[in-house]
């Protein structure tokens, strides 16, 4: 009889792959063994039927496993096996022994949870090989129970039996627990424990209370979706306008609150179980004020399922229990609630809920955290490095063994606690976890980001070299890294990043060749004078003023808007500031373009959360699209361009002019044109200009930056050019660390 060796590559460790192989082989009557190999592959040896075996393996694999490659070889002379066995692996740690991400509770576990005869009846920590917490509890590699915070809960006899039995679905599942031996829930200040704690929490919620709930990656704060209750929550969290995510009982409930497409349903039900941004069906005014979308997710732990089983309501606001900009709480909520439903399992790695949105038919990740991290992305750069990202919506990324591993979402690093308790610790954690010795520390070019100075400090400490990568180049490279593209023409559209010429960029077309280190600014949006720098970002009317004043030399057209000025503001003062260049920063910025639209159309005069004006504009533009149903390819205005002098010594830069379009739109709006139509046209105009520039290049077009999340912009662009955009990491600054890593590619080639 011939013996075969089958080598399987992919996400095959830590996902119940070996017991699955064991069961499959025994059921087929095959003899041999299966073992984990140090390089992340699984080696299977069987004494026959290899082809058939692999076919069934592919068809029946465990849900969390991902099979990338299978190699079958004949394996020496026949050997005598007495049966089929699982061989203990020698534990080499590193990239290849990474745990899978934290995945949603599986159907089989839920069935047990709601089976009164099962020993895990109503047990909120029920998990198995196919589901449950992984990364959030892991503090060291390899992913064995003793290297997780679950190690504080020694297995009872029953659990141990399951853990040791290759025929059991919990064989070697690191996160298993039961009511007898595992962590438990408590309700503060009521002193209730276990199921009673959950039952009581549900009652408090139904009665309109606000309850903090400790979950997998941190604390949520939960309450009903009724306006009155949510209003109270807003005061508590100091978030006057930010949309809150809603967790609904099930898919049916989701359908009552929002419109759900096929792609969106798949996302809702996936193992990642992210927050999916959906079109509202119900008003839900306080939950997502002045937006026509709402973020919805399904229950993703047994706790959530149990909570909903006790709850009358079919939906709960579920947002993170921290003040704006602060890191998500993992030890105790930062705000005073009516009750705290907490548990005694330590969260080692904070993971926020991930957020996805279907933009123009493509799934885009807005916030990449729970369920996605850690997932390595092959980039083909053989170095060890760490990239520290930008500032807001930050993540870091590590480079090892030719792969980039982007960290979980970190958030706003200008916030002190996020910077010190999350960012710095994440940097230390990832370096140690993956045993990286960085040759390079990659940072943003911005001189004031805390991450920039930390990169310098870290490089000094680690004896590494600092590489500064321009912000929009990094955005472009993040798409190129995902696709393995070396050369592209890139549209990088966002709020603000420090430019290679020392001015602020944010609406750019770049020609990038990652191999040769070519980075050329081909076109940019015209500059807007930001009066008072970031003050303009906080108050979009200032930005609108600058555009109108720049192009008409007066603010006559804005006279009616004086009622929106703040207490100390006046248009006279803005005029003075504009003319004297007093505390003014010129910026080419698609984000500020969106802001100015939001002020023009009277939808947002103060930005109270990241992206607020742009999101509100997107909501009104959707109405415009419906009313107008514009013909594809029909443009409303001819695009206008001027030329800037030589920039970066590399030639002329085309400048996308939009002043006259803005003035015209403002006049039309004031004359009574529908705001949705005005918004739609302005966004379409911008996309048209970018399309015109990139069409001149015979290169793949890539799109990145936060404005890529704008459905209308993306759609308008897609009508005109084929482009690639981010799919694996966010197009916003949360994905920039991947691009920073890919920048090392040119070094690779140069040496």
């Amino acid at each position, binding site marked *: 009889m011939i013996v075969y060796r089958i080598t399987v590559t992919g996400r095959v460790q830590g996902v119940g792959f070996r017991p699955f192989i064991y069961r499959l082989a025994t059921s087929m009557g095959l003899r041999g063994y299966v073992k984990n190999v140090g390089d992340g592959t699984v080696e299977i040896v069987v004494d026959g039927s290899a082809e058939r075996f692999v076919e069934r393996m592919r068809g029946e694999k465990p849900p969390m496993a991902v099979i990338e490659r299978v190699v079958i070889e004949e394996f020496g002379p026949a050997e005598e096996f007495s049966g089929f066995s699982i061989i203990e692996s020698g534990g080499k740690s590193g990239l290849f022994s990474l745990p899978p991400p934290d995945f949603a509770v599986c159907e089989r576990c839920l069935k047990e949870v709601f089976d009164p005869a099962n020993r895990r009846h109503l047990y909120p920590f029920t998990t198995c090989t196919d589901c449950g917490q992984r990364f959030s509890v892991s503090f060291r590699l390899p992913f064995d129970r003793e290297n997780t915070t679950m190690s504080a809960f020694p297995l009872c006899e029953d659990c141990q039996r399951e853990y040791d039995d290759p025929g059991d679905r919990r064989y070697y599942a690191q996160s298993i627990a039961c009511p007898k031996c595992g962590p438990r829930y408590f309700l503060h200040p009521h002193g209730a424990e276990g199921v009673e704690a959950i039952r009581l929490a549900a009652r408090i919620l139904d009665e309109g209370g606000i309850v903090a709930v400790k979950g997998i990656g941190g604390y949520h704060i939960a309450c009903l979706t009724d306006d009155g209750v949510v209003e109270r929550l807003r005061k508590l969290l*100091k978030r006057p306008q930010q949309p809150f995510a809603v967790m609904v009982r099930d898919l049916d409930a989701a359908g009552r609150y929002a419109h759900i497409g096929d792609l969106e349903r798949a996302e809702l039900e996936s193992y990642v179980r992210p927050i999916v941004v959906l079109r509202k069906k119900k008003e839900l005014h306080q939950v997502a004020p002045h937006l026509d979308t709402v973020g919805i997710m399904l229950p993703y732990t047994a706790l959530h399922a149990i909570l909903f089983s006790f709850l009358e309501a079919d939906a709960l606001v579920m947002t993170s229990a921290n*003040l*704006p*900009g*602060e890191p998500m709480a993992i030890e105790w909520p930062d705000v005073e609630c009516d009750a705290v439903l907490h548990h005694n399992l330590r969260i080692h790695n904070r993971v926020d809920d991930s957020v996805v949105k279907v933009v123009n038919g493509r799934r885009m990740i807005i916030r990449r955290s729970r369920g996605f991290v850690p997932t390595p992305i092959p980039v083909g750069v053989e170095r060890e490095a760490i990239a520290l990202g*930008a*500032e*807001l*919506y930050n993540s870091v990324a590590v480079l090892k063994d030719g792969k980039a591993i982007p960290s979980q979402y970190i958030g706003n690093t*200008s*916030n*002190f*606690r996020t*910077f*010190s308790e999350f960012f710095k610790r994440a940097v230390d954690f990832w370096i140690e976890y993956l045993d990286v010795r960085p040759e390079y520390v990659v940072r943003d070019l*911005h*001189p*004031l*980001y*805390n991450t920039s100075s930390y990169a310098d400090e870290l490089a000094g400490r680690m004896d590494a070299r600092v590489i500064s990568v321009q912000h929009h180049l990094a955005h472009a490279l993040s798409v190129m890294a995902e696709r393995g593209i070396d050369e592209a023409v890139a549209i990088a559209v*966002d*709020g*603000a*990043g*420090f430019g290679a010429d020392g001015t*602020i960029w*944010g609406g750019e077309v770049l020609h990038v060749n990652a191999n040769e280190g070519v980075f050329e600014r081909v076109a940019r949006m015209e500059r807007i004078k*930001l*009066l*008072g*720098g*970031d*003050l*303009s*970002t*906080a108050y979009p009317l200032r930005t609108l003023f600058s555009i109108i004043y720049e192009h008409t030399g007066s603010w006559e057209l804005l006279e009616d808007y004086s009622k929106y000025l*703040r*207490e*100390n*503001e*006046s248009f*006279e*003062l803005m005029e*003075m*500031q504009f003319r*004297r260049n*007093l*505390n*003014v*920063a010129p*910026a080419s910025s698609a*984000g500020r373009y969106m802001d100015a639209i939001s002020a023009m159309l009277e939808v947002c005069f103060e930005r109270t959360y*990241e992206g607020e004006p742009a999101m509100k504009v997107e909501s009104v533009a959707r109405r415009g699209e419906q009313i107008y149903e514009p013909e594809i390819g029909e443009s409303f205005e001819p695009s206008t361009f001027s030329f800037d002098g030589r920039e970066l010594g590399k030639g002329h830069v085309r400048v996308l002019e939009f002043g006259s379009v803005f003035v015209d739109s403002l006049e039309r709006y004031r004359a009574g044109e529908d705001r949705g139509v005005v918004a739609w046209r302005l966004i379409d105009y911008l996309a048209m200009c970018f399309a015109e520039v990139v069409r001149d290049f015979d290169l793949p077009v890539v799109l990145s930056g*936060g404005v890529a999340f704008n459905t209308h912009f993306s759609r308008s662009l897609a009508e005109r050019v084929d482009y690639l955009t981010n799919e694996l990491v966010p197009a*916003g*600054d949360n994905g920039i660390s991947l691009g920073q890593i890919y920048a090392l590619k040119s070094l690779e080639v140069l040496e």
Partner: protein
Amino acid sequence: MIRREDGAGGKYMTEFLRKRIFSRLDSRAGEISLSDMEDSADFDEKYVFTTDSYTAFPPIFRGGSIGSLAVCGTSNDLAVMGAQPAYMSLALIIQEGFDEGTFERIMDDVRYWSERIGVKVITGDTKVVEMNAGIFVNTSGIGVRNEALENNLRVLREYRDYPYRWVRDRGLKAGDAVIVTGNIAEHGLAMLLEREDLGFEVDVESDVQPVWFAVKAAMEVGGVSAMKDPTRGGVAEALNEMAEKSGVGILVEEERIPVRDDVKGVCDALGLDPLTMANEGKVVMGVEGEMAEDVLRVLRKFDESAEIIGYTTDEFREVVVKTRIGTTKILPWPTIDPIPRVC
């Protein structure tokens, strides 16, 4: 090419000085050297020495003139070392054709303030030039050890080792209170309003004044561990410099930063942060925690807006502001022009 940033304080200027100046010159006569970048340096047991050039435009402004700046500014650089301002030089570079009346006013201010402070102008120089200079004034000053300083160090040393002979900007230790001796941002804003004629109705004038008397009173109570004169770069720069040099962090409560509402209003309308605006008569002071209330009481006799704005800590190394809503943000080193960072 020398850039505007190179002379504007903050990180760029520090870098510039390190690269271009301290690499060539870095001497000390006593315990303080040039590259320590303190407000003054000692040259024996008894004396400290400082110099400063003034380029104020316009030369006469609400609340004072370049003359008051030159005398108070240099005296203040001495005072924040704990030294009593004693002697001064005065060097003038005047543009040909400079208005005589203006010049008279400037010199009257020089006389007025030097008499008030009790500092003797004992040497000087005058040049008239053709270039478009208006008027530049340079003053150097010598400060003297005094009883108040001795008392301060004696009291302070009851609580801890203090290895310095003067009050140094690196003297903070975890647990010190940080005091600002009065409302901030007024000089910077007054100068801006003078220059830019923004048509604003704000009754604000430069706070230019000597700090010596308040400093002396504080030292007579004792426990002052560090001082800085928050001129260019404002309180933000003073705090960052003191924290970095002392190797401690500072937690500041936004709510307690003394600033007039109308001043804050104008700053806010222009996108300026009062913490980065210049002051010419205030001190940022570190005080041994247990002495802080006593020192504050005395300081309030000079200016009732004096306030404990925060405390030092060894839990972190940054200057952190706790906002009104309870969040925390890192207070960066100031820059001259705004560099937007919000994406």
